């Protein structure tokens, strides 16, 4: 069953068409990536999903139907940067925002202590939010999003301002939540994080879906007809090869249309070439992102 179903939504602000036609589904218990260049319509899509904006057209189903006030308590949302009261102590701010999610005060206190300890913010709980560093504020926002144990987490740029240690911490938390059955919709520009975390993605550009589906399938779809090979010995001449390109510590062998990767592997093995690496060349998500967006610009 899907946690989120977005079907052909559109939204414009005056003359500006922010979202033209976007559709996707987020399955229960997956980490889903909502990707797109700046101004693609990601934030508008999220706000439509959360019923902050009414769509001009299309349908939205969230947690099995239209958004209701009761469902708000089952959703955790973190907007891109800020989102916390700056002039009040961190603990008071988080307790207040969690209480609006319907969590009893005793439970808030208990949960909050655990999270503050885990995110290394316990000793800063009495400080005003504005006195915290950007990274600390980001962690505080993540705590605010998760404190009420939501079924669906919608999180915009979760790794902004985080150092590698805290980035890993947030990733660990997200993976734990997914394993516990929480659905996570993540919007980010950090493609390597998407590759590590997301099961499926949708790429939006200029208000349209341009890419949607399982991440591995998409990468395979864009893999082209090539293999990556690394060997200590020099590669012999191979049949069915169009070109050989250096690629980091390996070579990328571009195959002719009729050649299969197995044919190349067979040739290498039969010539006793010691292989350290042999894999089908799959593009990074960064490369796919750039390719798809550039193709969109050319259209």
């Amino acid at each position: 069953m899907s946690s989120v179903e977005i079907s052909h939504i559109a939204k414009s602000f005056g003359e500006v068409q922010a979202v033209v036609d976007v559709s996707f589904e987020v399955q229960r218990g997956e980490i889903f990536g909502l990707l797109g260049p700046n101004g693609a319509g990601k934030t508008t899509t999220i706000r439509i999903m959360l019923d902050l904006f009414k769509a001009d057209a299309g349908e939205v189903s969230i947690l099995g139907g239209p958004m209701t006030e009761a469902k708000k308590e089952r959703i955790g949302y973190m907007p891109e940067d800020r989102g916390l009261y700056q002039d009040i102590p961190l603990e008071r701010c988080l307790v207040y925002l969690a209480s609006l999610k319907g969590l009893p005060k005793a439970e808030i206190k208990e949960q909050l202590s655990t999270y503050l300890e885990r995110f290394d913010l316990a000793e800063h709980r009495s400080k005003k939010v504005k006195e915290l560093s950007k990274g600390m504020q980001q962690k505080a926002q993540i705590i605010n999003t998760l404190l009420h144990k939501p079924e669906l987490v919608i999180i915009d740029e979760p790794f902004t301002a985080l150092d590698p240690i805290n980035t890993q911490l947030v990733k660990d938390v997200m993976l734990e939540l997914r394993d516990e059955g929480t659905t996570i919709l993540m919007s980010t520009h950090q493609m390597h994080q998407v590759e590590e975390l997301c099961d499926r993605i949708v790429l939006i550009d200029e208000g349209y879906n341009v890419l949607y589906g399982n991440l591995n399938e998409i990468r395979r779809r864009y893999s082209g007809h090539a293999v990556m090979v690394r060997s200590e010995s020099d590669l012999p001449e191979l049949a069915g090869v169009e070109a050989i390109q250096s690629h980091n510590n390996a070579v990328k062998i571009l195959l002719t249309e009729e050649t299969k990767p197995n044919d190349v592997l067979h040739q290498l093995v039969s010539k006793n070439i010691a292989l350290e690496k042999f894999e089908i060349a799959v593009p990074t998500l960064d490369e796919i992102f750039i390719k798809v967006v550039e193709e969109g610009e050319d259209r």
Partner: protein
Amino acid sequence: MMSKILLVAINEYRVNVFKKSFIFVLLSVPLFLGFIIGFGMFMDSQENDDAPVGYVDTAGILQDATPAPVENPEEAIQFIAFETEQDAKSALEEGRIQAYYIFGEDYQESRNAELVYYDTPGQDATRQFNDFLQINLLSDFPSEIALRGTEGSSVTVRAPDGSREFPDGGPPFGIVLPVIIGLALMFLLMTAGGFMMEGVVQERENRTIEVIVTSVSPGQMVTGKILGIVWICLTQLVAWILFGILALFLAQNVYEISWFQNPVIDWEGMLAILLIGIPTFFLSVALMFTVGSTVAEAQEGQGLGPIIFILSISPTWFIMKIGEDPNGPFAVALSMVPFASLLTVGIRNMLVAVPWWQIVLSAGLQTVVALGAIWLGGQAFRFGMLRVGQRINLREIFRSGTPRRKKLSEGGVS
């Protein structure tokens, strides 16, 4: 579980009430009034000198002088007769007296006297000596006539329609009280509107609003905020009332100021002020909320505050015009103008009994305008809450009230 409206209200209250600016506003009005009264009393004490006053009476008008009655015997100034001007001058030089009068032999004809002093004698001394002189000049008349002479003029002011009568020449405290309450309400609606606008702009700026409206409905949020602001204003009002009661107690019992003694409160006037003041309060809050929802920065919205203030105090500029004909067309029209109505009705009520139909009509008009402003505020909030850093104009707000829908063709997902 506590209602979300209540949670928002409590937060709004806590955020604002513990601000330095709130405590400043809370204390500023009573402190300002205290300063004015204290300064006046200080100046008064500087003007008063309770040292004796001398006189040299060669005219023989103060022989066997009768003392004039003094309202407060403790403040009575001693008058000392000197045989010669030289004796009086010596006493003045030695500081035994603060001044002395010389009544020449021709005083009965000329009515000219001389006053000799180094520093201008205090007002009390001058007034008491005048009474003393007056009562002795009238010593040939029956005592009640002599006493009446010292009391001075007595003017009773009556409204042409007979609805107001002021035996002391001016409105008593009980009649002025509704105007004071009106002024207090005016300050309240200014501060309440300010808190509302500042809060909304800040929440838009720091995007807290985006998080909050994913927890509560916009309606719950706005209601909670207004409730919180009302509590803040009630706190302010209670504090001011307590200060007012203290001031009244001091004025009645310590300083024994006659104007404050046995006040007869004009309850009808109070009711009129409240009937108009309450919708005006909500109008101010709603307008500031609308502005807060539409401006890009708090500074941009600060222009509305002075406009509301100018409108609110505008009746003081027309006080003569209102006074000339308190039930005339101009005064009645001004009583209907939002914000100006509060003080206009207060001033008119001091001078005449304002017809109830006008009060009800004014209160009704303020209510309708306030409801319109609340509707506008709701529209502006829904439309502008997430447009951070952008200014939104009225046309956009009104257009946002009518959703536009269009059909899209099937497909489109690659």
